[in-house]
């Protein structure tokens, strides 16, 4: 009887110790759109999370990855689950803007830092009590749009037609691009929309051709963005064509083929890491990611989207040791000091640029975070 009770006590003790040890581990909740419309962005991100370091500052790091199926409701459900059940110290995600925006409220309520992998500036701007907890790694659309408009004015382009997705991505780009283009005296002669799943854009393309623009900007992401370009070429359009950084993966080149020769697009430097000059601080950190990813998934498999997840990992790798000095993982204090450490990130070279965060700027990228790229011979070529 006594022995029995003793064993029981011993077991409880062991369990308690285990729980305590388990508590000292850092839990990172990752929410990614690995299925649904944003799957082409989410899958490389998911693959990248598997490459992130599993020990930071002598502490074990657990990554708990959940799929939100590109659905806003699922994203908020997931973040609540991660916070209440898994007691995570930090959230990484989600892949797309609507989901990230919805998650801000929950993260702020639970006072848990969140690093979004979505592009819209609205996720971290304007800074307020809720966005206090939110950071993001992809460049703002405005940064990319400025690069395109700059390139257009350099080539003295006067008239531009825009065709974009009939969703948040296309609308967001239209807002940014039309604002900046207007300021630089570029006239926009056509504004068309198409759906990701459309089988034909003949109508839109004919309308664009009738407006005779000097250049066309296609605001789409992934392989669907190839459709307008193919149709324009087929109908004999000869002007310049621009794409956005949303197309920067190998599948786009495969699907678009020779119709995309000579296309310009802005992109994160990781896309052309090997071609960057050695003096560029991003070159080394970008190549590190490319090599790691391609070692695991094969040559030419790397995309810029996965690099956003990698950059989130680099931010954590940089901030966690600082936070560990002040508090132990699993506590409210640790989350707060992790947030402070993230905000204090200075001169951190990552795959997409150099982070310099501040209380007002929770993205922290400058001009080094984007390059203009041209498609030449079925490959990405850095425009000097």
């Amino acid at each position, binding site marked *: 009887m006594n022995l029995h009770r003793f064993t029981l006590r011993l077991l409880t003790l062991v369990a308690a110790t285990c729980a305590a040890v388990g508590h000292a581990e850092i839990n990172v909740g990752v929410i990614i759109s690995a299925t649904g419309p944003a799957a082409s962005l989410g899958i490389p991100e998911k693959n990248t999370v598997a490459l992130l370091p599993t020990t930071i500052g002598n502490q074990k790091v657990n990554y708990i990855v959940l799929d939100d199926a590109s659905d806003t409701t699922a994203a908020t459900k997931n973040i609540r689950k991660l916070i209440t059940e898994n007691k995570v110290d930090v959230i990484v995600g989600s892949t797309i803007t609507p989901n990230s925006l919805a998650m801000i409220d929950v993260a702020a309520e639970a006072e848990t830092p969140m690093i979004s992998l979505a592009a819209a500036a609205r996720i971290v701007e304007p800074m307020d009590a809720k966005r206090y907890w939110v950071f993001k790694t992809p460049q703002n659309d405005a940064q990319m749009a400025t690069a395109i408009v700059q390139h257009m004015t350099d080539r003295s382009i006067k008239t531009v037609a825009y065709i974009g997705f009939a969703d948040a991505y296309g609308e967001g780009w239209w807002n940014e691009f039309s604002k900046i283009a207007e300021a630089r005296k570029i006239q926009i002669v056509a504004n068309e929309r198409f759906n990701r*799943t459309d089988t034909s854009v003949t109508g839109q393309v004919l309308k664009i051709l009738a407006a005779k623009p000097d250049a066309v900007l296609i605001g789409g992401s992934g392989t669907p963005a190839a459709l307008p370009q193919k149709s324009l070429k087929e109908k004999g359009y000869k002007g310049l064509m621009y794409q956005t950084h949303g197309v920067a993966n190998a599948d*786009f080149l495969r699907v678009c083929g020779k119709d995309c020769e000579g296309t310009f697009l802005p992109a994160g430097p990781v896309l052309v890491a090997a071609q960057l000059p050695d003096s560029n601080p991003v070159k080394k950190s970008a190549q590190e990611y490319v090599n790691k990813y391609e070692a695991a998934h094969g040559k030419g498999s790397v995309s810029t989207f996965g690099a956003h997840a990698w950059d989130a990992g680099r931010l954590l790798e940089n901030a966690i040791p600082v936070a560990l000095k002040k508090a132990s993982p699993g506590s409210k204090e640790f989350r707060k000091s992790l947030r402070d450490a993230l905000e204090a990130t200075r001169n951190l070279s990552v795959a997409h640029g150099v982070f310099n965060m501040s209380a007002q700027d929770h993205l922290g990228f400058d001009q080094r975070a984007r390059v203009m790229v041209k498609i030449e011979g079925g490959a990405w070529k850095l425009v000097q």
Partner: protein
Amino acid sequence: MDLQIALLLGQDGIANGAIYALLALALVLVFAVTRVIFIPQGEFVAFGALTLAGLQAGQLPGTLWLLLCLGSVIAMVEGWGAWRERRLKQIPLIVLVNCGAPLLLAGALLTFSPAGLPLLIQVLVALLVVVPLGPMIYRLAYQPVADLSVLVLLIVSVAVHVTLVGLGLLFFGAEGSRTPAFTDTSFEFAGATLQGQTLLVLLASLVLIVALYLFFERTIYGKALRATAMNRTGARLMGISSSLAGLLSFGLSAAIGAFSGILISPLTTIYYDSGFLIGLKGFVGAIIGGLASYPVAAAGALLVGLLEAYSSFWASAFKEVIVFTLVIPVLLWRSLKSRHVEEE
């Protein structure tokens, strides 16, 4: 909008409409024979196109594994049934048909790389892989509940659709594929260029529609399907097996779906989830035909294609809204015109 633009849009609309018409016919066929609203119809479009693209890229398409899996599950289900009823002699045949044939196909694809074969053979192989999935899905998902209400069958359809889309993502990845055109020729017509591929789509659709007509009018199986569509119980009393009719109609609709996918994949990029929207537009056509009339459904689908082409020119942001809003006046008109008959 001048004549040239109108012609180009018309050409585009008719080509898309022809595909929608094929799908509308398949939907009407399946609904008439089995009372199933076949939402996964579109998935066969995507599977057909992506399987062909996979074969051309020299990969073994994931649909092949699905075929093997479904085949073995059916063999188990059927085999168990035969065992319980002491029809032991049938078991080897069941295993041979459901497991042996897919295995043979897989073996052939593993030994001969399909990438170097002529396009026609690749198309045939893609059809061989995708089309049997139709009857197999009927056997597993629908046949056990074939006598339940239309609503239950609809719910099963939704489940099958979601499953197939998920499998599509697993098999083919998130990015789309295009296959090379069957023909590169183009014609000059009244100042507008006609793509040879577009004509081919039209021609193939027409041939298929005529073939379907002949099948239903002239062959014993076609007549059996029509009889089942008109009166299930009556047809059964005449010795027509309703499960055979179901298998046959699903096979036909899978064949039509996969073939449509192969036809349009040179014209546009197909994704694992492209099929749903294409199928839905075929469905709008089928609704115009009241899910009963073949010619009206085909005409309705053509109308959808044309409407889509012209609205993409005038108001591209509202294209889908315009196309799908078409359903409302049509439903109103149909419900005012026809008396509603309660399901027996």
